[in-house]
């Protein structure tokens, strides 16, 4: 759509496609950043109501302008760098975090045909990018030169590496069923089944993915890296102002990315299951982006729901859950899926 508008102005060829890509990137970046801002508001509201509170109410009607106020506050706050810190790495760490989180968005198809880079190794690319998010945390933990951050960084490294294995293995079933690593083709492959969602044959994989995604994004009940009761705030204790906000953004972008992978791989992406469309044919007129966003919001709600319901795991429990429960479950899922695929 954007390409045709640009070529109609008269800019064609390589330059035209580059400009179209830049415009698309700007759109995706803007929309995602808005979502990040309001995901914090949504989180505080949801958790507030679950705990019988109202959540933010002061800034704007029902506190609707709270994220704007928070953003302005953190932008103008003093930026403190500890004197014992390794300055270059200290400054680089939040950038790496945000880069790793935003990088994943390049291959996420938001609706049919709208994807920044439609590459054949989409899923592998996302694994590569999400494995980088550990570096932001490790670098922050090490360079701050503080015991709390260092412990948070070490914990997080071990946690992210362990759960990455389960995360990767849980998606292998989806790869087997769809015979592709391209996210658009994975969504199209789900449409060939009556259920239209891989969560039904792949419930084991979806379960493992969901838990591993919580650990990968360092969200409760796996927020050991920041465990405020033991480590004050974990790896970003020493950060303030905008650099602190960057870590916060990276966490929320990571959450949105993990939700969107779950939506694309297990819940049919921007499509509706065929059996629902047969009953309500008029729903086909609704644009796919609406369904995609609805499914994302549901996932994000589940993140908040679980955060306000479950207490934090103890560290050894976390490790044994990852290695002794989730990885074997994911392996069983791969074997069963492969056998069913081969013999049926």
């Amino acid at each position, binding site marked *: 759509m954007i390409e045709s508008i640009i070529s109609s102005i008269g800019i064609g060829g390589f330059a035209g496609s580059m400009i179209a890509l830049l415009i698309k990137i700007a759109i995706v970046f803007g929309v995602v950043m808005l979502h990040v801002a309001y995901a914090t508001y949504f989180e505080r509201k949801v958790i507030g109501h679950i705990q019988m509170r109202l959540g933010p109410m002061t800034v704007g009607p029902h506190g609707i302008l709270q994220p704007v106020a928070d953003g302005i506050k953190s932008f103008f706050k003093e930026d403190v760098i500890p004197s014992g810190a390794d300055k270059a790495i200290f400054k680089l760490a939040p950038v790496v975090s945000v880069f790793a989180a935003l990088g994943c968005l390049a291959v996420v198809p938001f609706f049919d045909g709208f994807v920044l880079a439609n590459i*054949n190794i989409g899923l592998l690319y996302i694994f*590569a990018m999400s494995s980088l998010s550990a570096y932001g945390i490790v670098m922050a933990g090490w360079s701050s030169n503080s015991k709390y951050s260092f412990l948070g960084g*070490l914990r997080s490294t071990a946690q992210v590496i362990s759960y990455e294995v389960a995360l990767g293995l849980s998606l292998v079933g989806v790869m087997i069923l769809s015979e592709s690593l391209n996210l658009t083709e994975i969504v199209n492959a789900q449409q060939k089944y009556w259920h239209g969602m891989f969560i039904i044959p792949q419930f084991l994989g979806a379960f493992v993915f969901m838990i591993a995604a919580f650990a990968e994004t360092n969200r409760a009940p796996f927020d050991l890296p920041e465990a405020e009761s033991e480590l004050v705030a974990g790896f970003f204790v020493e950060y303030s102002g905008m650099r602190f906000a960057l870590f916060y953004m990276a966490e929320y972008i990571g959450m949105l990315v993990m939700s969107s992978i779950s939506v694309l791989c297990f819940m049919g992406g921007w499509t509706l299951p065929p059996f629902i469309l047969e009953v309500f044919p008029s729903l086909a007129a609704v644009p796919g982006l609406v369904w995609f966003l609805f499914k994302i919001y549901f996932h994000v709600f589940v993140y908040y729901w679980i955060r306000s319901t479950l207490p934090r795991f103890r560290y050894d429990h976390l490790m044994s859950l990852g290695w002794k429960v989730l990885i074997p479950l994911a392996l069983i899922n791969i074997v069963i899926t492969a056998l069913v695929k081969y013999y049926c």
Partner: protein
Amino acid sequence: MTPKIFFIYFAISMTFMSVMVITRRNPVHSVLWMIGLFFHIAAVYLFLNAEFLAAVQIILYAGAIMVLFLFVIMMLNLKEEVVAPRFIGEWPIGVALGIAIITMIIYSVFTIQPGPVGEHTIEAIQKTTHAKAIGSLLYTKYIFPFEIASLVLLVAVVGAIVLAKKR
């Protein structure tokens, strides 16, 4: 022309980063430069149309192995490491060997002759997608070396567990 410019950039910065890796006083800085280096190597794989290898390069080397490196180095007593000299006494021998290898490579680059084109041309791989092409070769034609490699890895895993359990 554009690919050439990109390649020149990657070649120069890879050389620069390799030098940085071996000259930094702080081992953590060395590891971080090395991660940057791995990214650039992945980009060179992309130039060779090996997108699968590029992704695996980042997932395995940058994502897993270097994190473990960083983990170990951070756990070591850094103050001693920083004070100790970065180069052992025998470094001139290493430089001589390096120069010898570079001359050999440069010499062979100018006398290289392209071999016959196999069945896995760029067009053929783009048609089947990269992951599928690698997978079907690995599990049919090269199944024996593949299984040997997995056995070697299994031995390493068992060995690591035995070492860790020994008190």
